[in-house]
C-alpha cells in the first residue's frame, strides 16, 4: 500500500458523476483503506519528526491511551448503528470508577468485587438510558444528556467532589500491569526493561473489540441491531424485539463505560469524580471517523478501532512535537470534519 495514495483520492472525485463499476462492498473496502491509509501517513509523519515516536515503548503508551477511547467507541458504535446516541459515557465512567474505589476503600471489598460493582453501576446506568429511550420514548440525545448530568452529579456527591486515594497497590494492577513484561537486573543493580509488556488494558480492548465485532457481524443479535438502525418499523414487523435490542446497546455502552472507568482509575490508583469529561465526544468521533453513520444502520468495530487510533496517535504525536493542547483540539476538530466530509463524498450520487 502506498502512503500517499488513499487520502488524496476522494476529494479529487467529482461530486456528481460516481465512479463506475464500484460495488458497495468495494467502496467499503476503499473507505477502510482511506482511513487506514491516513493512519499510516500519520505514523510516517510523526516517525520522521520525532525520534522517540516509533519505539516499542511509545507504541505501548499509545495503545494504552487509545484503550479508553476505543472501549467507549465500541459502545458508541453499537448505539449509533441503532440510530441512537450516548452522551452519558464520560460521566458514567467517572461514577463507576468512584463506586469501585469507594467499595474497596470504605466497604472493604476485595478489588475484583469493587471493580465488578463499578462495572455493574455502568451497566445499570446504561439500562436506565435504554429504558428511558424505549419505554418513556424520549429522544436518545435527551435521555443520555440527562444521564450525563445525573451520573456526574452522583459521582461528585458521593465523593464530596474529592479524589478517592490510598486505594492500595492491588487497585492499580488492572491499569498498570502488563503481560510478558521482561525485566532484567543489570550489573549496576538497577532493573532494565527489556520489553515493557502488553498492558492489561490493551489486551482487554483487543478482546472486547473482537467479541463485539463477532457479535455485530455473525450473531442474530448483531443482525437485529443493524436491522433496527436500517428500518425500525420493518424490523418490528419482522418480529424483532426492538425494545430489547435498543436497550442492549445502551447497556453495552454503559458497561463498557464502567469498565473504562475502572481501568482509568486503576491507572491513577486514585478515583477522580471529575475524570472523563468530554470523553463521550471522543467516543462518538472515533466511531464517526471509522465510517459509522449517525443516521443509523451503518458502522463497524474495525472502523471505530481505526478511528480511535487516529485520535490517539494524533494526540501522542502532536504532544511529542510540542504542539500545545489548544492547537491539538483544533487539529482533531479539523480531522473529524475532513473524514466525515470524505465519507459524504463517497456516498453522494
Amino acid at each position, binding site marked *: 500500500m502506498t502512503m500517499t495514495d488513499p487520502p488524496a483520492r476522494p476529494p479529487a472525485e467529482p461530486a*456528481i*458523476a*460516481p*465512479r*463506475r*463499476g*464500484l*460495488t*458497495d*462492498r468495494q*467502496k467499503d473496502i476503499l473507505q477502510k483503506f482511506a482511513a487506514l491509509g491516513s493512519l499510516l501517513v500519520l505514523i510516517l509523519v510523526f516517525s520522521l519528526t520525532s525520534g522517540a515516536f516509533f519505539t516499542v515503548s511509545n507504541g505501548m503508551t499509545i495503545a494504552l491511551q487509545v484503550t479508553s477511547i476505543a472501549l467507549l467507541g465500541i459502545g458508541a458504535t453499537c448505539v449509533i448503528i441503532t440510530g441512537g446516541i450516548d452522551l452519558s459515557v464520560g460521566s458514567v465512567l467517572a461514577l463507576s470508577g468512584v463506586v469501585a474505589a469507594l467499595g474497596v476503600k470504605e466497604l472493604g471489598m476485595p478489588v475484583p468485587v469493587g471493580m465488578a460493582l463499578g462495572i455493574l453501576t455502568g451497566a445499570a446506568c446504561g439500562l436506565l438510558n435504554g429504558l428511558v429511550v424505549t419505554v418513556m420514548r424520549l429522544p436518545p440525545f435527551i435521555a443520555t444528556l440527562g444521564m450525563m448530568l445525573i451520573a456526574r452529579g452522583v459521582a461528585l456527591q458521593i465523593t464530596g467532589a474529592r479524589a478517592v486515594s490510598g486505594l492500595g497497590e492491588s487497585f492499580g494492577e488492572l491499569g498498570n500491569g502488563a503481560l510478558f513484561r521482561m525485566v532484567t537486573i543489570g550489573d549496576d543493580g538497577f532493573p532494565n526493561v527489556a520489553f515493557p509488556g502488553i498492558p492489561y488494558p490493551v489486551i482487554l480492548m483487543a478482546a472486547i473489540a473482537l467479541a463485539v465485532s*463477532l457479535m455485530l457481524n*455473525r*450473531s*442474530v*443479535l448483531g*443482525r*437485529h441491531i*443493524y*436491522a433496527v438502525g*436500517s*428500518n425500525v*418499523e*420493518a*424490523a*418490528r*414487523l*419482522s*418480529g*424483532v*424485539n426492538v425494545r430489547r435490542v435498543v436497550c442492549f446497546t445502551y447497556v453495552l455502552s454503559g458497561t463498557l463505560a464502567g469498565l473504562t472507568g475502572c481501568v482509568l482509575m486503576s491507572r491513577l490508583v486514585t478515583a477522580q469524580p471529575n475524570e472523563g469529561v468530554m470523553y463521550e465526544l471522543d467516543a462518538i468521533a472515533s466511531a464517526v471517523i471509522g465510517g459509522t453513520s449517525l443516521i443509523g*444502520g*451503518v458502522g463497524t468495530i474495525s472502523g471505530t478501532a481505526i478511528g480511535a487510533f487516529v485520535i490517539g496517535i494524533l494526540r501522542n504525536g502532536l504532544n511529542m512535537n510540542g504542539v500545545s493542547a489548544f492547537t491539538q483540539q483544533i487539529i482533531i476538530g479539523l480531522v473529524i470534519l475532513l473524514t466525515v466530509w470524505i465519507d459524504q463524498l463517497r456516498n453522494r*450520487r
Partner: protein
Amino acid sequence: MPDGASAGLRPDLPHPVRAGEDLLFLDAISKEFPGVRALQGVSFDLRRGEVHAVCGENGAGKSTLMKIVSGVFAPTAGRIVYKGVERRFSSPLDAEALGIAIIHQELNLVPHLSVAENIYLAREPRRGFLVDRKALRTNAAACLARLGVAIDPDRPVRGLSVAQCQMVEIAKALSLNAEVLIMDEPTSSLTEQETRRLFKVIHDLKAAGVGIVYISHRLDEMAEIVDRVTVLRDGHHVATTDFAATTVDEIVARMVGRSLEEKFPERTSRPAGDCLLKVEGLARSGVFADVGFELRRGEILGFAGLMGSGRTEVARAIFGADPRDAGTVTLEGRRLDIRSPRDAIAAGLAYLSEDRKAQGLAIKMPVDANMTLANMEAVSNRFGLIDFAREAEVARRYVDLLNIRTPTIHQPVRLLSGGNQQKIIIGKWLFRKSRVLFFDEPTRGIDVGAKFAIYRIMDELAAEGIGVVLISSELPEILGMTDRVCVFHQGRIAGILETARTDQEEIMRYASGYGPAHSRH
C-alpha cells in the same frame, strides 16, 4: 423511434418536430450507476401544451430519466436542450429556476409549515429581513384559486389529505411559473373523484401552454388526458406514438416486450372447507368495530373498501402491529393472544405492509439479510451465531423460486425495483412458513409483468393450503383474484360477498355505505 438518430450539434436540425415547437428535448441520454446501466441513449421530446406519458415497467428507467430532467442526476452522456439552449443542471434548483418542476410520487412537503409557507418555501416574499406574511398569503391564495381548490393557505400541511397535498405541490409548481411539469404517479393514492379534479387541472395547465410529463402505471385513465406516449424498457427507448394511434394492450406489450393475454392467472386453488383463521368482535375505539370474518384453508379473501375504511387497520391489529380494544383471533381452533408482531409471527401470521420502503424492508441491508430477518433462528446455531452458508442457500432458493432479479444475493435491496422488493418480502414470509398471509396493496407501484407474477404466487400459496388476505383498492384485482370479499365501510364490515356472484357496482355500493341492493337475483 423518431428521435434516436439525432446526433447533430444543433438540436432542431435532424429532429422531425418543427423547430420552436420543442419545449424540451433530451438527446441520447445515458446514465450509469455502479453496476447498473439505468439508461442507454434515450431520447425524448416535449412540446408546449401537451401531456406526454412515459410508460415502462419498474426499473425501465422512467424515474432516472425524470431525475435527470429535473437536475437530481447528471447524465453520463447525452444532451438536455431546453427552449433551444443546451443546459447542464447541477442541482434541482437550477432546473426549477428555469421553469422545470417535478412532483414526486412521495410528496415533498414540510408537514409543520402552513400551505402558503410550503408553496413559497425558500422563496418567501420579503420586506427587508422579514417575511412579508401578507404577500405570502395572498400569493398562495391566488395560486390555489387558479387551480380551483378550496384549501386554506394558513392550514398546516400536516392535516391535509394526499390529494390536497398534491394540489399544494401543483400550486407550488405554478408559483414557479413552471413551463415543464413532471408528475410521477400522481393518481396512485387518489380517489376517483380526486382524480377527476386533478385531470381538470391538467387540462387547464395544458391550455395555458405548460408541457406535462406524466408517469403512471394506470394506463386505463390515460386516454382522457394524454397526447403522446413514450415507452421505455430496460433503460432503452422502445417507441413514441400519439396516444390516439395506439391501444393500451399495445403499450403493455411494448412495456413487457411480449403480449399479455390476461391480467390475472387462472386460479388453480380451491378453498378447502375447514376454517383456518377466525376473527370475532375485533374493535379499536374510533377506528373499527365489530369486525368478524372467517378465512378458510386455501382461500384468498379480499378486503375491499375506500381509503380509511379500516381495512389496513384491521389487518395490522390482527397482526399485533397496532393495539386493539376487544375481539378474539383463532387460528386452527386455537385462540391466539397476540400482543406484538412477534407473537403473530410465532403463531404463523404474516403481514406484508402497503408501504414497502417505510415498513417492509431494511433497505440498506442486502437481499439475504432481508430474506431471513423474520426467521433468524432457522439460520443460526444455539449460540445465536449466523450460519452464513445456510443463509446464502436460503436466499438463493427463494431468489430462484420467486424469480427475483438481482445481480447477487448481497445486493442492498434499495437498488432493486419495486416488484423485486415485494418478492423479497414474500420470500421472507415463505421462509417463515407462515400459514396466513395478509397482502396489503401488494401490487401498488409495481409493473404489469411483476404484478402477474405476484398474483401467481398468491394462487400457488393458496393451493398449498395457506390462507391469503388480499387488501386492495383496485377492484379488478379483488374480482380477479379472490374467492370472497369483505367490504369495509367506516370501520365495519358492510358485507361479505362471494366474488363469483358479485361485481364492481355491488362492492362499491357496500363500500359507500348503501348496503345490500334491493334484492339482486
